[in-house]
């Protein structure tokens, strides 16, 4: 009987360790990526456009922009025909990359620290980070999920939402799009996205 308890306890410890290990791997991978980006940002020989495209290329394997595009439309997504679905995803991804690039332009010597790792489900993780500059601290949380099947050119954990000071990019987009589509069509929304 005692043996069984021991086995159960050791299995429990083992599983705890595996979970912690998975979190550490992701944290390390994330910080490595950030360091890669910082090296590119600090390389003053690159012109802005080349630099931004390099950064986007470095980060793209970590993001699932396609999923973000789908989720941002909520229930409407399923009502779109195939060609509109493709077009919307393309526009959304383009917009995301542009928005990210413009945010990188504001970068100046801030540091990123991971303050907490949450794992609400086995296939979901949240890295809570602080973007620390001389004057302020900005809390940014990155939400990851683990796809069942590994995707081409993608990491094993993918970001599907970024929450800046409590403001979720995905939620805000979803709310905007939902409200927009109450009175206007998906075509109009795409024209709007294209013009940005």
């Amino acid at each position: 009987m005692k043996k069984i308890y021991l086995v159960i306890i050791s299995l429990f410890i083992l599983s705890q360790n595996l979970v912690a290990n998975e979190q550490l791997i992701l944290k390390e991978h994330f910080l490595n990526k950030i360091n890669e980006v910082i090296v590119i940002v600090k390389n003053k020989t690159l012109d802005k456009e080349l630099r931004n495209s390099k950064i986007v290329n470095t980060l793209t394997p970590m993001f699932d922009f396609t999923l973000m595009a789908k989720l941002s439309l909520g229930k409407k997504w399923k009502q779109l025909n195939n060609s509109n679905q493709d077009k919307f995803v393309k526009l959304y991804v383009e917009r995301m990359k542009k928005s990210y690039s413009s945010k990188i332009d504001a970068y100046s010597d801030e540091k990123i620290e991971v303050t907490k790792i949450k794992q609400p489900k086995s296939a979901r993780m949240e890295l809570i980070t602080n973007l620390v500059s001389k004057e302020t601290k900005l809390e940014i949380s990155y939400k990851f999920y683990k796809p069942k099947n590994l995707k081409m050119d993608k990491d094993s954990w993918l970001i599907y939402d970024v929450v800046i000071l409590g403001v979720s990019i995905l939620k805000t987009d979803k709310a905007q799009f939902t409200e927009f589509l109450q009175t206007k069509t998906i075509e109009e929304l795409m024209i709007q996205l294209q013009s940005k």
Partner: protein
Amino acid sequence: MKNILFLSCTVFMLITITGCSSKVETSKKESFIKEEQNINSYEPIDKSSFNDEDEFLDSFGEELEIEKRSDPLSGYNRVMTNFNDGVFEYVLAPVARGYRTVVHKEIRTSVGNFFHNILYPIRLINNLLQGKVKNSADETGRFLINSTIGIFGLFDPAKSYFELEAHNEDFGQTLGFYGVGAGPHIVLPFFGPSNLRDTFSMYPDSLLNPIVYNDDRGYNLTNSYGESLLLQAYERVNYVSLHDGEYEKLKKDAVDLYPYLRDVYEQYREKQIKE
């Protein structure tokens, strides 16, 4: 019996060691996991892939549920959002830009510090009202240090040397802390996005605000309502000059400005209240 103990110990050790081992090994492990996933992925092919995708997308549904916000004032709010946006673009931003080119950044930072320091009563009282004793002590420490060593709050040695962080709290957060809901969203002229709770809260906070002129109060930094307004406008210009381009950048992600700013504001406030 001993054997099992030994076995479990070795297994435990092994796991711990591999957990701390070099990256080469972790990447090997990752690729192993990937392989395993690939093998597993062949199983559900007979099912309809559409259903799988639906189910997968639905699994995010709860998290991304948008709270139905009451918005009876949306018509007015839209107009006011455009008004504020115009004021920002054509008045505030150009003035701040001019100010920025004339006044050195160090000075503007100090001006910002000064205004922040002087608003200590608001932060103290609201931290106390929420029972945040440590934060109240931090704030008091900050006020004492910055008002003396920091020369009337122009500098922030409390943060740079004593590692005391500011804890911003206002009456809206205090009410939220005790469960008062946000109420309908209201866009205020010049002040921007707010809601019923936060608009009401501006009054108790203004009583604690030394910059705001108040006849019934013994102490006043300014001599009249006019002076007080001027000082507040100056504070705003100084703030914008230190946060150059932030609003413009935020605005770029908007498909429709009013609901976008509304949601950003409400989500941000919810987060502040939770903290």
